[in-house]
């Protein structure tokens, strides 16, 4: 008889794989990308494509420099996913070098210098985004007016040259408007009267993000814990304050339906590597992100604090993991 295999049990596998997970997530981003493109013009698509290419190139370079085999790493789709998530956080009009810088920080600094896939402490996409947010705040606030999205030619010229051929900052996002308005001692009803909170487009973006995310949850590509906890962590304090004084506190609905809230809850906070691993840990981690986002939005300097909330909670993950371990079978409750 020929030599028999001595591989140990188990001999069956669920056929799940890292690359299939990443591909699933990329596919689930299609609805929200479409909604953003519809709202803000072709710049979104350009950014996504360019960021994916940048991240993938940096991934290849880093694998080479680190002396790693290119396969299966370059086909695991994790680098393009980082690129896509990064691009969806950026304003639709962003010059190419900013995207390249963000990709560099995401892939080289946040991911490979920490040991590559599986070892990064911080969410790579949010690291890249945070670098731009701190270093280029003006460019990061330049959202075009949804009523008048730039066409492809204008977008391309801005993308290549970065010069202000069009008025990019005319359409502040609802969260920007709230933040600026409240600082100028205006109340929410006044802001609503001026029309700056008209956010039907953003509602659609968030709904599409939720649709893609729910599909992933239903396909069991990811668990429901983090998105649910993020949304609860954001909505609960918002609800309490809104009940307290609706004139200066945006409603939970406004919080959930504007900016990238649902995109973040379903796609960014759920990055497995940099989040907690047990179900209980995921709930704590998600709640933390939700609450921190609310705190930054309400009392912080940034109109949308999602990236900083994620990065801060990334820091807390080892602690959360340690104290959210499930009870061992038969152990007396701790």
């Amino acid at each position, binding site marked *: *008889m020929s030599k028999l295999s001595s591989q140990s049990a188990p001999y069956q596998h669920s056929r*799940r794989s*890292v690359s299939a997970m990443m591909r699933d997530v990329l596919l689930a981003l299609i609805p929200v990308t479409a909604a953003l493109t519809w709202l803000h013009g072709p710049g979104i698509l350009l950014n996504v494509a360019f960021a994916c290419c940048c991240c993938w190139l940096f991934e290849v370079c880093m694998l080479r420099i680190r002396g790693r085999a290119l396969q299966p790493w370059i086909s695991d789709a994790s680098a393009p996913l980082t690129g896509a998530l990064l691009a969806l956080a950026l304003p639709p009009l962003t010059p190419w070098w900013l995207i390249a810088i963000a990709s560099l920080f995401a892939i080289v600094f946040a991911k490979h210098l920490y040991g590559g896939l599986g070892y990064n402490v911080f969410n790579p996409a949010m690291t890249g985004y945070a670098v731009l947010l701190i270093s280029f705040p003006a460019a990061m606030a330049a959202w075009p007016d949804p009523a008048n999205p730039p066409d492809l030619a204008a977008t391309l010229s801005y993308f290549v040259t970065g010069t202000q051929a069009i008025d990019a900052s005319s359409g502040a996002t609802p969260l920007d408007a709230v933040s600026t308005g409240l600082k100028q001692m205006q109340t929410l009803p006044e802001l609503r009267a001026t029309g700056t909170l008209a956010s039907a487009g953003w509602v659609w973006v968030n709904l599409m993000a939720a649709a893609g995310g729910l599909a992933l949850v239903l396909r069991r590509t990811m668990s429901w814990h983090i998105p649910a906890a993020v949304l609860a962590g954001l909505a609960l304090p918002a609800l309490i304050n809104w009940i307290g004084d609706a004139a200066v506190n945006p409603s939970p609905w406004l919080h959930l339906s504007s900016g990238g809230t649902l995109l973040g809850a379903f796609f960014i906070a759920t990055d*497995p590597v940099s989040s907690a691993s047990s179900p209980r840990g995921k709930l704590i981690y998600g709640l933390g992100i939700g609450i921190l986002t609310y705190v930054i939005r309400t009392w912080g300097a940034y109109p949308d604090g999602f990236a900083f909330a994620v990065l801060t909670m990334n820091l807390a993950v080892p602690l959360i993991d340690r104290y959210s*371990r499930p009870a061992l079978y038969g152990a007396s409750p701790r």
Partner: protein
Amino acid sequence: MTKTTMPRSGSWGLKLSSEKDNSALPPAREVAIPDMLTVLLRQSAGAASIATVAPGESVLKGQTIAMPAKTGFGSYLHSPVAGHVLEVRNGSRDAGGPVIVIKNDRSERLHPDCQPVRNPLNRSPRFLRERIAAGGIVGLGGALFPTEVKLNPAPGIKTLIINGVECEPYINCDNQLLQEEPHAVLSGAQIMLQVLGANEAIVAIEQEMTHAIECMLAANTRLNDPRIRIVVVPDIYPGGGERQLIETLTGLQVPRGGLTADLGIVCQNAGTAAAIDHLITRGEPLISRLLTVAGNCSAAPANFRVRIGTPVSALVEAVANTPPTRIVMGGAMMGIPVTDSEQPVSKATNCLLLLNNNALTPMPTEMPCIRCGDCVPVCPAGINPQLLLESTVIRDVKQSKELGALDCIDCGCCDYVCPSGIDLTARFKLSKQTIWEQHLLTLRAERLEQRFAGHETRRLNKEQAERDRLAAQTAGFKDVSTDSKPALDAMLKRLKSDRNKNSSDKAPD
């Protein structure tokens, strides 16, 4: 008699395709008894048994050929056939371990000791327990724990659980048993109730095993013993694990590091119950068992009644239509690879999977852990396998223990769901081994230290005794030096005068 159906008791476990026929099965097949049988001497949880026969000796079917080692948890072994002993390898560390090889003379003559017990339900627990030990009955679910030990727990056992939950894919022999001999399982349960003095028995069967459930319900109705109930449990792997089954049935967990008896429960496999019935009511010691042969190299999955000691190759020849490249003893989740097809069937062998490279689903290429946490909810032992993996990688024994390395039951659920294709179970087994080895080393070091300390104490005591003896001898001098100055002076004077006398005596010479 109605059946009760239990709900799922937590998020743990997997819903796996059972890969077996749950409808009415044909009778178990027989495989030709081979000319040579190899009985492993290590067929229980304890140390290898000690052969009581010598090469050349003739033996009868059912004759005792080995007895338990003194270290405990051993078992008696019996000759599966009539014939003579070819070879005895006692305690050797050769491949395959210590064995007795028996040549079959095909007479099938039964040893006269194989006698049934009359009226077993009127016999004393002690008598029955001794019979069960002498019959070589061990836990047939795979752990091979001596049944007589398990049937002799601290007093206060209320419930006997008969485990008919065959949750692992492909394994189908208990299903066969429950369908073919439901009365034997129930009779075994009655005998065990008698031994334990327990007042209820629960026969747990997996929901999927529909025909087996019907057979057991019918047999239980016929038997009409109000102490015995049939309970259906959800088909979740590994719901048939002893501790998992207890959790499903009672909602309670066996304390960590404790025994099921701490909850007043004793759990026995359905096969063990039937083996006890065969022993007590028919006088047959444990020399054969039911096993499933399945996998893509077998013509069709089938159950066989096989003598213990039959080589795997005999079964491969009987059923394989293409040569297997992998043979697994056990199921697809926990089975052990067989690398030598001459390895014999033991009391623990419930299944043989004959596979080639196209079979089952291979693990994906291993990638680093992406911390997705999918392994956490599926773990029936409540481990966070992702964290345990990290601590095994850095070989932190203390932390591994704290994270539950010794609580792992090797079920393989974490491997199954891992998208990175990490062989977590294999690593945890290794970690467990390291922990035990370190534990043994520590024990050995402690023992050596104690021996050294004993040595030292004895040496010091001896020296002290010597000093005391000398001190006692010189005690008189002390008296002289301190209290009897005049006496000493007198002695010195006498000595001096003696010397003078001697010298004056000698002088003329």
